[in-house]
């Protein structure tokens, strides 16, 4: 497959002009017609003022210069770029659902029922006892979970200082633990790529607040010693945290709650197919075991004896992690997706995700150092530069995988095709991998050629940051 991306080129210096290069209109603010005295207003405001047809073209062109899951495969590892069913957009656009978060309980029973229903779905899928839907993203879910762990330890009079995290974990885990005030203890992997149980036993202590674990881990391996890992952490009074980024490998075949995890987050924009929106919004609900339910963010939602729904603040709630109820529109879409699939569909999604990853890896002329993997795998570019190989793949009608991460695999290309790709598409993807991997040094170093922009100079962007059209004008 060859891909030529749309490329609107204004002149030798730029592609589609900025809105500000199409128009700048300055309006004087204040003066005799103003409803406010001049000392309370600004002097002027300069923004583009363009007609609707001009804007429709501007944004249509920008969209054409952008890759998406509807354009083609998007196998970013640990990102679970699935197809986002169109009907979920229509469901979320229901104007009856578009209410203010301060509405009375009586007048918002529909929204509360949806929240309650989604809580129940997620609890049963994860094997958890109670769920909050408030965290607006995966990292926010991690932060919520670690705050719950902290509140739990505080409540029991234990002032613990450390969170243990495997070296292969997502960067957010480390940042989350640090934000919550914990020291990070980094855990090395064993030779097989999994948690080194002996190293874990040496690392845990009375200072251990929690172990944050992704399972399957970031090279797709299931932590076979999970029961021993859980015992080791629980024996010192620590809690086991599940990073839900890779839950798409487990649906219907394994539940974190059954493995000994006490707290988990769900990435609904990954596992439950809500659109990634160019970077967000997602949602990061958090599930906990019964013993931790009293620490969940307020308000919680529950069904009442008369079949209605109510909100309440748990006794020892950590408080709030979002100004309101989180990313509401995303939560509606997640509910609709889960309802569409049901038990069999969810289990099949994971089965096909794992089948696709294994089938794709089998077609590659490259080495996958760790296995057996599940829904994702880290293939190595060996003596080639993984970032260069990835850039060359852009010319072949596919988005490349996550590159140079995790670090345990040299020149890693972390690949997660998800269940939505057909065998035919996986073959195309494999051809792109293999062609890029075996291409000449010159070809991969100067790639891509067919995208809107050719290779972008990252260094000068960081050395001389220009973050607005004002800054561009000054250059």
């Amino acid at each position, binding site marked *: 497959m060859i891909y030529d991306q749309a490329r609107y080129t204004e002149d030798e210096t730029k592609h589609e002009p900025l809105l500000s290069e199409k128009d700048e209109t300055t309006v004087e603010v204040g003066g005799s017609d103003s409803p406010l005295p001049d000392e309370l207003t600004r002097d002027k405001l300069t923004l583009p*003022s363009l007609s609707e047809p001009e804007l429709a073209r501007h944004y249509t062109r920008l969209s054409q210069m952008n890759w998406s899951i509807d354009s083609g495969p998007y196998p970013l590892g640990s990102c679970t770029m699935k197809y986002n069913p169109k009907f979920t957009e229509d469901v979320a656009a229901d104007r009856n659902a578009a209410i203010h978060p301060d509405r009375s309980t009586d007048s918002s029973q529909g929204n509360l029922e949806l929240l309650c229903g989604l809580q129940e779905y997620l609890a049963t899928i994860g094997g958890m006892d109670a769920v909050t839907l408030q965290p607006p993203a995966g990292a926010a879910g991690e*932060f919520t979970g670690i705050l719950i762990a*902290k509140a739990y330890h505080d409540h029991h009079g234990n002032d613990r200082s450390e969170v243990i995290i495997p070296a292969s974990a997502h960067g957010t885990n480390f940042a989350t633990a640090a934000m919550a*005030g914990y020291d990070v203890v980094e855990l090395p992997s064993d030779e097989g790529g999994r948690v080194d149980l002996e190293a874990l036993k040496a690392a845990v202590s009375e200072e251990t607040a929690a172990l944050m674990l992704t399972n399957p881990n970031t090279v797709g391996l299931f932590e076979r010693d999970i029961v021993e890992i859980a015992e080791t952490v629980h024996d010192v009074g620590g809690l086991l945290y599940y990073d839900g980024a890779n839950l798409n490998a487990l649906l219907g075949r394994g539940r974190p709650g059954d493995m000994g995890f006490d707290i988990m987050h769900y990435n609904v924009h990954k596992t439950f197919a809500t659109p990634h*929106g160019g970077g967000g919004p997602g949602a990061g609900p958090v599930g906990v075991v019964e013993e931790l339910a009293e620490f969940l963010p307020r308000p919680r939602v529950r069904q009442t004896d008369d079949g209605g729904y109510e909100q309440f603040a748990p006794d020892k709630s950590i408080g709030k992690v979002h100004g309101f109820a989180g990313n509401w529109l995303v939560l509606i879409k997640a509910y609709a997706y889960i309802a569409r699939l049901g038990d069999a569909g969810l289990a099949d999604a994971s089965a096909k995700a794992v*089948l696709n990853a294994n089938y794709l890896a089998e077609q590659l002329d490259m080495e996958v150092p760790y296995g057996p993997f599940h829904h994702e795998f880290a293939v190595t570019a060996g003596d080639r530069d993984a970032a260069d190989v990835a850039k060359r793949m852009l010319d072949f009608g596919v988005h490349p995988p996550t590159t140079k991460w995790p670090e345990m695999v040299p020149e890693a290309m972390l690949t997660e095709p998800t269940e939505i790709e057909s065998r035919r598409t996986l073959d195309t993807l494999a051809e792109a991998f293999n062609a890029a991997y075996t291409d000449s040094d010159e070809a991969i170093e100067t790639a891509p050629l067919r995208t809107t922009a050719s290779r972008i100079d990252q260094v000068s962007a960081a050395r001389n940051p220009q973050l607005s059209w004002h800054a561009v004008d000054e250059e």
Partner: protein
Amino acid sequence: MKNTDGSPFAPHTADETAAMLAALEADSEVDLFDIPDKVAFDGDFGIDARSEQEIRGELQRLFTRNDDLTEFMGRGHYSHYVPSLVDHLSDRAEFLTSYTQYQPEITQGFLQALFEYQSMVVELTGLPVANCSMYDAATGLAEAALLADRVRETTGDTVLVPKYLRDGKRSVLENYVDGADLSVRSYPMADGNVDREALAELAGDETVMIYAETPTVRGTIEEDLNEIGEITADTEALFCLGSDLVALSLLEKPASVGADVVVGEADVIGLPTSYGMGLGIFATSEQYIRQVPGRLVGVSEDLDDRRAYTLTLQTREQHIRKERATSNICTNQAWVALRAAMHIAMLGSNGLVELAEDCVRDAAALAEQIDDLSGYQAPVHNRHHFREFVVRSNQPAQAVVKSLESAGFAIHAIDDHLLQICVTETNAHATDELLAALQEAS
């Protein structure tokens, strides 16, 4: 639809599945899993699969269980009319179904749109550095306090916030600063605005950041932001100002009153009422550029010497800096930022300022009409207002709210005898009926 037994979004036919398994020399998909039996799950979730049509019907019925009320509500979540262009263009799959721009060469379109959003925030705040989104205003405020803690060399550990502050903002802030051992303390208000004398007395060596809002959560417009800026500068704390993208088009530029960081509701624009879903502003000055949380889009050139956009200064971020990152944020609110930029572009400078002026005029006019009713005084605070204002009622506030609900309206009760009412172009058509219902409730 091919795969009728399993996920409707997995395209495999039985033959294809069999061929793929054969290529792997596996008997079944289950053989590919490496989950020990003792933790494997073989139960049911009990979730029945439904058709697309069934789910649409089910949720349509479910959402009608929300009462159909005309809302005059605000306090941090607002409703402005969103032009159709915003829905239609932001819903283009190339935008909606893409992700973070890890490969900028193939995602120039979204990067440019986010760069344009950042530029609009820069114009509105007067501060030169704006990120391309926080989750919401509350988490933006919390991140500002963490930035203040990183950059201030004082020994202080106190964040000062107004007494009138949305509970969600205060609670999120307390949660975020707990790990940095900061404490949050309130300063008093005087007739709805900052009590500047009291603030000056409270501020000192201990202060890491002073936060103020305009408009405030009660809808009042601060009258002497310069003095708050000076108080903050005297203590060498950071001045964090909260506002929203509509109000900023009319009110004093934060940069000109000494604000070091601007946070607040960007979701006032581009996003209709959506149960509190948000988009947080984060803007700051040049000197803190390497301390900013979240993603930044910058400009560079490609090999053909053409301008190109890319995520930049990524060494601040969690995927590179891990526990030393400026924040743990990864997935953000990019698509909501795209919508905000589209809406601002649709309004243009004139339209945006006119919208903001209407927020002042309409609030003043409605307050005056309510004040003319017997049993109500409005506005309670003798200030200029933006969109919303506080009303004192002779009847208990909760009773008034209940009575209004049965008449088809939703407003806030914020104290025993205090109501709060918010008016924009989305509910202005119903003010006469609201007035009649209020009169009825008195």
